[in-house]
């Protein structure tokens, strides 16, 4: 069997095909008496052009599922295809390269590098991809105005509000034009008003016909922004609701 490529030839991907396809995904941690089963046979399709919300109570396995479909954790059993690639079967190096090229991340705590300015933080994924610092920062400077931070390009994270930091994180997640965006509780550290603004912004700049967005959240104030809402309980998808 020919191993799957680490990076994708984007022209060959059918936009109608699911960006993410999970079948019977099981994830266990530990073993013996300490065995914890976080995912118990998850089946999920995430289509392109939609914002999919993964919701459910704390401890139901949302973040574990997000880590699995982002190629950060390998499933114990089951199949996970991301952008048509069987990611768990990729070697360590190819998996890292696949993530770097095809997936954008937005974290709950932003995880910006405190010593870098907003523009430099946004440029990080390009630098990881081998783009020179000057070119990467130049591209970041064109992206920051789109997330409403034209005047904060040279500010350090400590000089930015929570909402502004999350905007920087969104720009960082999009700068290398990934086809799959994963967001972990992007509004959890924000008040209601800023949370709404962030989701509106994501809808505006992140959702496109060739990109899939998955957001893990338990913030029911933002459920209305999702095109598709997958509800999890006890390690399983119990309901998928689509607005389209």
């Amino acid at each position, binding site marked *: 069997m020919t191993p799957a490529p680490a990076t994708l030839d984007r022209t060959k991907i059918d936009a109608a095909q699911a960006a993410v396809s999970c079948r019977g995904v099981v994830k266990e941690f530990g073993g013996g008496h300490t065995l914890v089963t976080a995912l118990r046979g998850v089946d999920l399709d995430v289509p392109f052009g939609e914002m999919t919300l993964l919701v459910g109570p704390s401890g139901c396995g949302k973040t574990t599922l*997000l880590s699995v479909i982002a190629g*950060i954790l390998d499933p114990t059993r089951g199949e996970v295809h991301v952008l048509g690639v069987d990611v768990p079967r990729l070697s360590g190096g190819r998996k890292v*390269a696949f993530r*770097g090229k095809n997936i954008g*991340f937005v*974290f709950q*705590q932003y995880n910006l590098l405190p010593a870098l300015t907003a523009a430099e933080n946004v440029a*990080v994924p390009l630098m990881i991809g081998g783009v020179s610092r000057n070119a990467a920062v130049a591209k970041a400077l064109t992206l920051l105005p789109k997330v409403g931070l034209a005047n904060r390009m040279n500010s350090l994270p400590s000089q930015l509000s929570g909402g502004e930091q999350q905007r920087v994180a969104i720009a960082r997640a999009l700068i290398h034009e990934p086809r799959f965006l994963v967001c972990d509780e992007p509004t959890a550290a924000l008040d209601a008003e800023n949370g709404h603004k962030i989701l509106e912004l994501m809808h505006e700049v992140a959702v496109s016909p060739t990109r899939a967005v998955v957001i893990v959240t338990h913030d029911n104030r933002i459920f209305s922004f999702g095109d598709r809402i997958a509800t999890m309980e006890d390690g399983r998808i119990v309901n998928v609701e689509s607005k389209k």
Partner: protein
Amino acid sequence: MIWIAWKMLIGNRGKYLGIVLGIAFASLLIAQQGSIFCGLMLLTTSQIQDVKGADIWVMDRNVQFIDDIKPLSEDDLYRVRGVSAVDWAVRFYKGLARARLENGNFQQVIMLGLDDGTLVGAPTEMVAGKLEDLFQPDALIVDENGYHQLWPQQPIKIGQVFEMNDRRGVIVGVCKASRTFQTFPIVYARYSLATLYAPMERKVMSFVLAQGKPGVPAEFACQAITKQTGLLALTREQFMWKTIMYYMNNTGIPVNFGITVMLGFIVGTAIAGQTFYLFTVENIKQFGALKAMGTSNPRIVGMVLFQALQVGVIGYCLGIGAAATFGAMTKSASKLAFYMPWWILLVTGGAVLVMIFLSSLLSIRKVLVVEPAIVFK
């Protein structure tokens, strides 16, 4: 990524300075103590260094170092002169004498007796008086430091008098000389006079100073002398090293300095390692985020090693600079022995490399085992 590593490092100024200062302190201690040790070892050879004009020292086979005097007979001098590779050879006396000053005080001095005809081994730089005055009756030349030891707080004056072995001696000159290991004043006299100041013995000649024939390497001449006379003949450098090795092997000096250097190394490694580890732990989520975003483990390790190397180089430069400044300041202002040869820089650099490597090991392990999933917690 190197740039990001650098920004991460200097972004946390407290920890950055802590690591740099830890390494700088260790470098300072290693280089400074090493240089003092070298200076001290060099002091043991000061009289060998100060004897100019003769490349070869001939001595009894059992001599272990410059102060281990085993007198030679007059015959030995003639036997050395009889070696075909030798151009000339002269007597040289070295011993301790007790000087009785006009005020009744006694002071131990190092007596050096120079060949009456040639004055081979004489000081090369006079502060007062002339070398030729040594041919006068009872004439002595004393080194500048020794003069101030014998007559503290007195200006340098020719004509000062003291007694040794109940014989009068007159200071006819003051010269520059390297400081000695024993810190005693150095007194120069003609050989014939020096042996009168010294306690009476059957044989009094300490060394034979010799020079190989033009074009004959000193090492070759030494071998020829040893082979033909059975005496030990060494070049100046060989005798210096023999003396240094004696002190290295038979005194606690290297151990004492070694302990201090080792403590500096351990303390430096502990401070730098602990602070560097804390720095890594503090940034572990950032490293996790970089891994999640596609940075491979080798690149992460490269970032950590770069950070370690950077603080190592800066700490090393600061430490060496501080040690050199210390040496420059104390050399003129105190009696501290300080000599920093090039290999001290190399040894200190090697120690710093080991230090930062050990310091970064824990951090590297930490960033390697961190799961990118940490960013979702």
